[in-house]
C-alpha cells in the first residue's frame, strides 16, 4: 500500500498540475487588460522562450554559459536575412533560425563542451564574441553596426498580417512559446532530462553509472541553442529589425539575471523572472530614465540576499 504510494509519487511527477495553466491564463488576460502594451508583451513572451533555453542548459544540465546570445542572434539574423532577401514566410523563417542556431550550438559544443567550469564559461563567451565580430565585419550582408534593415515578413499562413498594434505578434509569440514549453516540459521529465539533473548534481557519479555524459551535454546544448535561435527569430520577425546587440554579452548576461530572479532549474523561473525584469525595466526607465539600471541592480541584490532560488524559491520556503 505505502509502496505503491511512494512509487506513484515519482511515476506521476510529469502529470499536469492545475497551477501550470496559470501563465497561459495570465498571458491571455494580459492581452485583454493591456491592449496598448502588446508589442512589449510579444517581446516578453519571446524572451521567456530565450530564458527557457538558458534554463535547460544552466538549470538542468548545470552548464554555466555566457554565450546564449550567440544562438539568439544567430536565429535572429537567419530569420532577418531571409526576410530581407525575399523570403518573408514566418514559420519557415522561424525554423531556419532554430536550425542555424542549433548547428552553431552543435559545432561549437563539440569543441568547447570538453571543458567544464570557468574554462567553459570563458569559451562560451569566446564563441559569442567571435560571432559578434563576424557579423559586425560582414556589414555588406548584415548591416553591421547599423543593424539589419529592410525585413519584410509575410502574413502567417498567408492570413494574419503583422499589425501595428502587435496583436498578431502577440499571439504568434504566445503559440510558439506554448509549443516550445510543451517540448521542454517533456524533455525535463524524460529519462534524458532526469539524467541531465544527475549530471548537474554529481557528474562523477553519472560517469560511474555508465551514462554517456559528454553526449548528453552536447545534445542538450544543441536543443537549447535551437530554442534560443527560435526566440531570436521571433523577436526579429515581430520587430522587423535585428541589431548587433542581439549577439552581445549584455543579452547573455541579462537572460541569466532574469532566470535567477525567477528561479533556476524549475521550468517556470523564466515565466516569472522575464516579465518581472522586463516590466520593471519598462517602469523604472520611465520613472528614472538615467538611473533605471540601478533599480534593476537593487532588485538583483535583494533576490540574491533574501531569495536564493529566485521568486519560485521563495514560494517553496513559504510552503514549508
Amino acid at each position, binding site marked *: 500500500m*505505502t*509502496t505503491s504510494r*511512494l*512509487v506513484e*509519487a*515519482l*511515476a*506521476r*511527477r*510529469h*502529470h499536469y498540475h492545475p497551477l501550470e495553466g496559470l501563465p497561459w491564463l495570465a498571458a491571455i488576460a494580459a492581452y485583454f487588460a493591456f491592449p496598448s502594451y502588446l508589442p512589449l508583451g510579444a517581446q516578453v513572451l519571446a524572451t521567456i522562450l530565450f530564458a527557457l533555453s538558458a534554463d535547460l542548459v544552466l538549470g538542468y544540465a548545470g552548464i554555466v554559459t555566457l554565450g546564449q546570445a550567440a544562438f539568439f542572434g544567430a536565429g535572429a539574423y537567419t530569420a532577418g536575412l531571409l526576410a530581407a532577401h525575399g523570403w518573408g514566410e514566418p514559420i519557415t523563417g522561424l525554423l531556419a533560425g532554430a536550425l542555424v542556431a542549433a548547428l552553431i550550438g552543435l559545432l561549437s559544443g563539440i569543441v568547447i563542451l570538453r571543458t567544464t567550469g570557468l574554462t567553459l564559461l570563458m569559451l562560451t563567451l569566446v564563441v559569442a564574441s567571435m560571432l559578434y565580430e563576424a557579423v559586425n565585419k560582414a556589414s555588406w550582408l548584415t548591416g553591421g553596426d547599423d543593424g539589419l534593415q529592410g525585413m519584410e515578413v509575410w502574413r502567417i499562413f498567408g492570413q494574419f498580417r503583422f499589425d501595428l498594434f502587435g496583436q498578431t505578434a502577440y499571439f504568434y509569440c504566445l503559440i510558439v512559446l506554448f509549443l516550445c514549453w510543451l517540448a521542454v516540459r*517533456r*524533455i525535463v*521529465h*524524460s*529519462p*534524458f*532530462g*532526469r*539524467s541531465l*539533473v*544527475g549530471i548537474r*548534481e*554529481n557528474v*562523477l*557519479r553519472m*560517469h*560511474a*553509472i*555508465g*551514462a*554517456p*555524459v559528454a553526449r*548528453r551535454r552536447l*545534445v542538450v546544448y544543441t536543443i537549447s541553442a535551437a530554442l534560443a535561435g527560435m526566440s531570436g527569430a521571433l523577436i526579429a520577425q515581430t520587430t522587423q529589425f535585428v541589431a548587433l546587440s542581439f549577439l552581445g554579452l549584455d543579452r547573455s548576461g541579462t537572460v541569466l539575471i532574469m532566470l535567477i530572479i525567477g528561479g533556476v532549474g524549475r521550468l517556470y523561473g523564466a515565466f516569472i523572472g522575464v516579465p518581472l525584469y522586463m516590466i520593471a525595466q519598462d517602469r523604472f526607465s520611465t520613472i528614472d530614465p538615467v538611473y533605471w539600471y540601478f533599480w534593476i541592480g537593487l532588485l538583483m541584490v535583494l533576490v540574491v540576499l533574501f531569495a536564493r532560488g529566485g521568486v519560485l524559491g521563495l514560494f517553496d520556503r513559504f510552503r514549508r
Partner: protein
Amino acid sequence: MSTPALETRGLHKSFGALTVANAVEFRLEHGARHALIGPNGAGKTTFVNLVTGALRPSAGQIRLDGADITDLPQAARVKRGLVRTFQITALFRGLSVLENVTLAVCERQGLGDELLRPAGRHRAVIEEAFELLERFGLADEALRPVNTLAYGRQRLVEIAIALGLSPRVLLLDEPAAGVPSGESGLIIDVIENLPSDIALLIIEHDMDLVFRLAQRITVLVQGSVLVEGPPDAIAADTRVRQVYLGERMPA
C-alpha cells in the same frame, strides 16, 4: 585455472616520476569476497580508478571475464557489469533517495537517451529501484532528499545505486569510511547479504570489516602488491605487520 571475473596484468600508472601503480598483477575470482588493504597513499583508490576507467594506465592490461577492457571508456565498462562505489559519498545530492537509485536503473536499461517519454511511464524501473531501497531498509526515506539522510544511511544509498546497475564485479571503495563505528554494523550486514554471484572487491581501512567479510586479502604498498592470501595468513605475515605497525591487526 578458470577465467577470473577481473584481472589486471602488469598494470602500471605513473604521474611523472611518481609511480602509483607498479606492475600490479591482480585476480578477482567469480563470486569472490576479496579485500584490498594498504596504508594511506598505497594507491588503492588509484587502482579502482584504473580498473573502472576513470584513469588511463601507463601500461598493462585490465581484463573483465577474460575480455580486454583496457581501452574501453568508463561507461562501456559499467555496461559490462563493472561497477564501483565511492570513498567520498558521491550521490545526486538534491534528489530523492528513490530517484538516486532510479537514475542508475534507468541507465542500466539504456533509457537515458529517451527524450520525449516521461520517465514516470517506466513504472517497472521505479519499482525495481524501490525494491532495492526496501532491501536496504531505506523505503521510509524514499522521497527524502538524499543529502538530508544521516551519513551512515547515505553510505547505504551509495551501495544501492551500484546494485541498481546489476553488477557482476563490484568495487566498494571504503564502504564504511566516515561512518561512526556504531553504525558500521549496518553496512557490514548489507555487504554480507549481497548476492553471492557478484564478485566483490572491498577497499577498506577498517580491519574489523575486512577480516569479517574477506576470504582473500591483497596488501598494496606504494603501488605494488606486497602479499596476497587468506586472512589468517595475512594477519600472521610479518611484513604486513611491519607496514601496519601501530595499526590494530586482529591476531
